[in-house]
């Protein structure tokens, strides 16, 4: 088994780094005890879930099996964890209700998109990536990040953003989803067994920014201080 993984890693090093770099912010959250903050607790759950999904996908990819089912299933969970983080960052009740409604709505939308994209759901070998759901997830997360940035500017409560952990998390998310938003729907057409169309560097960009995003998370978590948590 190990030589198979090693071969896959040598063929696709950037993708493999993107899988295992998740361990860095995950370990840091536990080490820095950042999970005492509800938002970072959700980030920890997100990272654990992401690592599990990524490892499964890594294994199935190494075994030359279709792993897009995991990619599709993970989408509503990713959105729920990430939007849940913002649930604790905004004080408006209306906004919190909107977030919960968006989680339920997005789950229904993703299920519909999976069904629409895959008319034969039992055929896992030819399972295809969703057409809209990943893009919609990106749009929603970017909107939440921008709303949070607006809130930061308006409230003027954080003297130095570079030492504010959640700013780094938001920046990482903004960059990752910005890099993925146009490429995600293309995967629906390109990520198939019969496809001969190679996206080239455009295919690697989201993976590179996934690594950058994990590094940004790590920087943010590194700045987290349990002593100063009450002040944040």
């Amino acid at each position: 088994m190990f030589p198979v993984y090693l071969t896959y890693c040598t063929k696709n090093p950037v993708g493999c780094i993107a899988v295992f770099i998740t361990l860095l912010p995950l370990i840091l959250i536990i080490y820095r005890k950042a999970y005492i903050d509800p938002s970072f607790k959700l980030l920890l759950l997100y990272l654990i879930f992401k690592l599990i999904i990524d490892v499964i996908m890594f294994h199935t990819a190494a075994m030359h099996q279709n792993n897009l089912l995991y990619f599709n299933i993970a989408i509503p969970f990713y959105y729920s964890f990430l939007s849940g983080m913002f649930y604790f960052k905004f004080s408006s009740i209306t906004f919190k209700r909107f977030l919960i409604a968006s989680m339920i709505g997005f789950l229904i939308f993703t299920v519909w998109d999976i069904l629409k994209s895959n008319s034969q759901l039992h055929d896992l070998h030819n399972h295809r990536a969703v057409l809209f759901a990943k893009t919609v997830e990106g749009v929603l997360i970017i909107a939440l990040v921008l709303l949070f940035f607006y809130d930061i500017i308006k409230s003027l409560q954080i003297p130095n953003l570079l030492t504010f952990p959640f700013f780094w998390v938001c920046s990482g998310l903004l960059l990752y989803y910005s890099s993925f938003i146009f490429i995600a729907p293309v995967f629906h057409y390109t990520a198939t067994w019969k496809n001969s169309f190679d996206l080239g560097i455009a295919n690697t960009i989201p993976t590179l920014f996934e690594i950058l995003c994990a590094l940004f998370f790590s920087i943010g978590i590194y700045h987290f201080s349990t002593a100063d948590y009450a002040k944040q």
Partner: protein
Amino acid sequence: MQNSEELKWALLVASLAMLTMAFCMISFVMYYQKRRFEEEKKINDIEKNYNRLLLDTALNSEETERRRIAQDLHDDIGTMLSLTKLSLNQLIKMAGNSRNEKEDQIMRKSQSLVEETILHVRRITRDLVPTTLERFGLLEAIEEFIHKLAEDKNLTISFHAGMEEFPRQAQKLELTLYRIMQELVNNAIKHANCTRIEITLEIREELIGLRVTDNGIGFDPEKMKESSMAGLGLLGIESRLAILNGTVLYEKPEKGGASAFAQIPVMPVADVKLEPLHPFRRERVNV
């Protein structure tokens, strides 16, 4: 094939454009936040300076008014009382031995009353304008102040200076420390029911420290400040210190009583005027 190449480029350009926007957004938030904080800080500094200037002007006006009253007392009332005393003396001489005992008694009583009033006027003018402070400095002024209070047999006031030769400081600093000392000692006498007051003056590095300790009933400075009237003296001390970047710390010594420790950065006067200022000169207190 050409179409697929174009699609690749289109995707790449769109993704890069989106990423550029994301980077710009993050940079903008950081820059804007920083700028707003700087602006906020500037406004706060301006407000702080303005308040300080207001306070400074108010205290200067108070000193000027004290000088004016002292001058009026000295020039007008003092002169008139001296003339009255002179006239009384002349009247006594003119009356000679012709007046009876009762008239003589009234004359002497009037003379003594006028003399007493002159002394009172002199004391009030000196209280209003501490001429000793201007002439000889803080040590002498404090010693003179203590000497005046020494008449009270139930109260012992001691004064310790950290050094024999206390370098002259800027007029404003000396006046501030003197007024604070006056306020603290007067407070102790009025409210603390104390029998002993200790005043200490010392220079440590770049700070002048004034400590006034009494053995009275003590007080809670926070509660005093909250009450509408009682804390005015303490607020006045803090206001005076704020102008000179000074601080005050109130403590409760273990053996009882109260202790106040005021600290002000030193402002030495290199070229001290040896000639004393005229105590009642009409001028704005330029400190």
